[in-house]
């Protein structure tokens, strides 16, 4: 860790110093980058201003404003001013991003030059996308992207999506409560245990239950244990995978997390997943009233608004909590997802009584260029400009933009302290948590990226939702999910699924 940081800090300092010559000129024109000015590079403001795309039109399909939609539109406007290109940005709700691109793709049309979506669309979309040309892959700004996010954007070694965002699930907690000596003493007196950042999901549940339903921050309102994405069909399957990895991702049993790669038998109803779902059903007792119906927005508002002690999912809730004006700025901490005291070994068919923890490198925002677009170079230039160092540094400081760290130079605590006013310790914890997950762990889980991925995730969401609502036991619910997964695999073809799944498994098993 120290080695990496010591190599990154001088680089950042050097870049900042080098940018000084351009800072006034470009940040005067584009106040968005006022904190850094332009930062030299192949796709910097300076470089883009030398391109001439006058008379050409770029059409982009992106998400609704603000998350990802706002930075897309902002950078489109900047790109247009710099290059003379006409850029048409179309905003689409998250749930329709997949189909809005897929329908014309399948019909052989190219209404959009650039499509935004989620990185786990990659297998279904890749046949319609133009791989990122070597020129961009070799650029310095791309060399700064973490290997995990190069892997997420690539298929079998070829980069298909242009990295614009980085995502992972991690634990967010109220630092002012966990580090509070008074509460530490009270917790010890009542439970006989130390109050600390939870190391396992069981400990998470114990602490969350203890801090559930009373006013522990003395604001006159009740607070609760945890805010989680539990609403069916609202990304809840990703939350379930986050809770499952510790119990089910065993580094000693390679060859698949979701399926057994050898026979393509679903592993989703194995004891590890059942244990995670049992924990999750228990969690319905320490979420806020109605928490079982929380989507991602509710989770962000609940934790970001100071309603809960814990939360885990994408960066957004943490960034929202740390923005200026937040009632809990500098009162929150980041930590890896909790682990477990035992992990299921599917080969021996027994629990291993050993501590296990596994980061979940969840899917996030991705952008790509349509193969049938007639403006490949301009489209890639736009994406390269979108993610240039100056834009990226400005974007990750704005919570509503939905742009999160994915470059090695993002994991330098000083930038958060100096540019965003974060507490030094919190910035250090945040940076270390993220870089540890991305660069150091060898027990990572990547999102399912196979043909028909939506069918698999939808089936899981339905089963998990039934268990959370008390309609079925966790075992029965996951047995039903496994049955559904078998049917989907049979329909699409076990070999087709295996071929695609093997690409992800190779990453998880550290074979590439």
């Amino acid at each position, binding site marked *: 860790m120290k080695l990496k940081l010591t190599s990154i800090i001088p680089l950042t300092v050097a870049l900042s110093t080098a940018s000084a010559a351009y800072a006034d000129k470009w940040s005067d024109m584009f106040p968005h980058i006022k904190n850094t000015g332009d930062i030299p590079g192949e796709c910097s403001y300076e470089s883009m201003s030398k391109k001439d795309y006058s008379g050409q039109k770029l059409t982009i399909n992106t998400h609704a404003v603000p998350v990802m939609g706002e930075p897309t539109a902002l950078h489109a406007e900047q790109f247009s001013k710099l290059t003379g290109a006409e850029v048409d940005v179309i905003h689409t709700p998250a749930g329709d991003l997949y189909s809005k691109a897929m329908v014309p793709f399948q019909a052989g049309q190219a209404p959009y030059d650039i499509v935004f979506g989620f990185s786990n669309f990659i297998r279904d979309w890749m046949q319609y996308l133009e791989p990122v040309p070597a020129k961009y892959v070799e650029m310095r700004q791309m060399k700064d992207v973490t290997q995990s996010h190069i892997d997420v954007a690539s298929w079998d070694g070829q980069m298909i999506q242009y990295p614009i965002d980085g995502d992972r699930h991690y634990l967010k907690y109220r630092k002012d409560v966990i580090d509070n000596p008074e509460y530490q003493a009270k917790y010890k007196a009542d439970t006989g245990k130390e109050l600390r950042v939870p190391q396992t999901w069981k400990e998470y549940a114990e602490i969350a239950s203890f801090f559930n339903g009373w006013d522990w921050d003395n604001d006159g309102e009740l607070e609760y244990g945890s805010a989680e994405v539990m609403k069916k069909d609202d990304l809840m399957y990703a939350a379930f995978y986050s809770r499952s990895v510790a119990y089910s991702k065993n580094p000693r049993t390679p060859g698949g997390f979701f399926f057994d790669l050898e026979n393509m038998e679903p592993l989703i109803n194995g004891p590890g997943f059942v244990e995670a779902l049992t924990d999750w059903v228990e969690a319905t007792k320490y979420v806020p009233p109605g928490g079982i119906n929380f989507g991602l927005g509710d989770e962000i508002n609940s934790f970001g608004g100071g309603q809960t002690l814990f939360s885990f999912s994408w960066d957004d809730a943490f960034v929202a909590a740390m923005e200026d004006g937040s009632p809990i700025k500098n009162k929150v901490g980041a930590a890896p997802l909790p682990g477990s005291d035992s992990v299921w070994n599917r080969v021996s068919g027994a629990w291993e009584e050993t501590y296990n923890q596994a980061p979940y490198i969840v899917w996030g925002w991705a952008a790509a260029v349509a193969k049938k677009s007639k403006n490949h170079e301009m489209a890639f230039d736009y994406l390269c400009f979108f993610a240039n160092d100056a834009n990226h540094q400005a974007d990750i400081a704005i919570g509503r933009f939905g742009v999160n760290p994915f470059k090695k130079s993002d994991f330098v605590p000083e930038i958060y302290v100096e540019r965003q006013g974060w507490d030094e310790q919190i910035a250090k914890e945040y940076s270390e948590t993220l870089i540890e997950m991305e660069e150091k762990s060898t027990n990572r889980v990547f999102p399912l990226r196979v043909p028909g991925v939506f069918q698999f995730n*939808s089936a899981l969401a339905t089963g998990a939702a*039934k268990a959370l609502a008390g309609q079925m036991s966790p075992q029965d619910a996951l047995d039903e999910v496994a049955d559904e997964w078998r049917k989907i695999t049979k329909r699409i073809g076990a070999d087709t699924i295996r071929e695609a799944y093997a690409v992800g498994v190779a990453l998880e098993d550290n074979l590439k």
Partner: protein
Amino acid sequence: MNFKHKYLFLLPGLLVLIGILIFPVGFTVRLSMSSWDSFFPGLDYVGLENYFRIFQEDSRFWEAFGRLSFLSVTTVTLQYVLGFALALMVWKDIAFKRFFRVLFLIPMMTTPVIMTVIWKTFFHESLGPVNDFLNIFGWNPLWLSSEILSKITVIIVEVWQWTPFMFLLLLAGLLSLPKEPYLAASIDGAGPYRTFIYVTFPLMAPISIGAIIIRLIEASKIMDTVYVLTSGGPGTATETSSFYIFIKGLREFQFGYSAALSFTYLIIMIISLTIIAKVLVRLMIRDN
């Protein structure tokens, strides 16, 4: 006018009919016999495979249909009772009659999705004003996350939104009723209750049946309220047929299968609504 000219005049209407009705239905049927999904785009031919899947494997579709039947019948019954009551209220000469007539129509004029978002905010269990108020009495009902209450919440929103439609049709019916039967009833000494039972209700039967059937057709397509309010949850507690078809088609991208679901659903609805209409005619008009 000769034979050919006659058909020439029919042609524009026929083309419109083909364009907006026959082609979409025909294409849906063809699509339902393909395996078109995100991985295999295109109209291949798999025969009745998708239909066998519906009847042999897909219990979730039938559960959703059962839920839809419950929600439709309940909401339309409540809408009819309330709509009739409101129509009767402003039928006679009362103060501010015009004001009330417009007031009762407002929910129908609002955009369903936006109003459902507002209702969702009202019923939000930890942040909504409804539970804020009920908390004073120590109650904290789980409007959106209890299996039973979530159904009631959907019913409340649907009844609020569409009772005005029923009110409008029934009020129009009441205003068009002949005066003579009422004069006769009055001469015979019938009070308000007897007049309603033996004069107003029977006279309104044809309009009532029409209004109920129109609302049943609309209610059977309930989708936006469920989508915004509960996403079919908790679990599958409020998942209806149209929401399920939406998930299969536009969430999971199983175009072929969702077309088969849509066509099956269409056939079931045509049969069910025909039976319901006949039963209602027998029940309400026979005595007439």
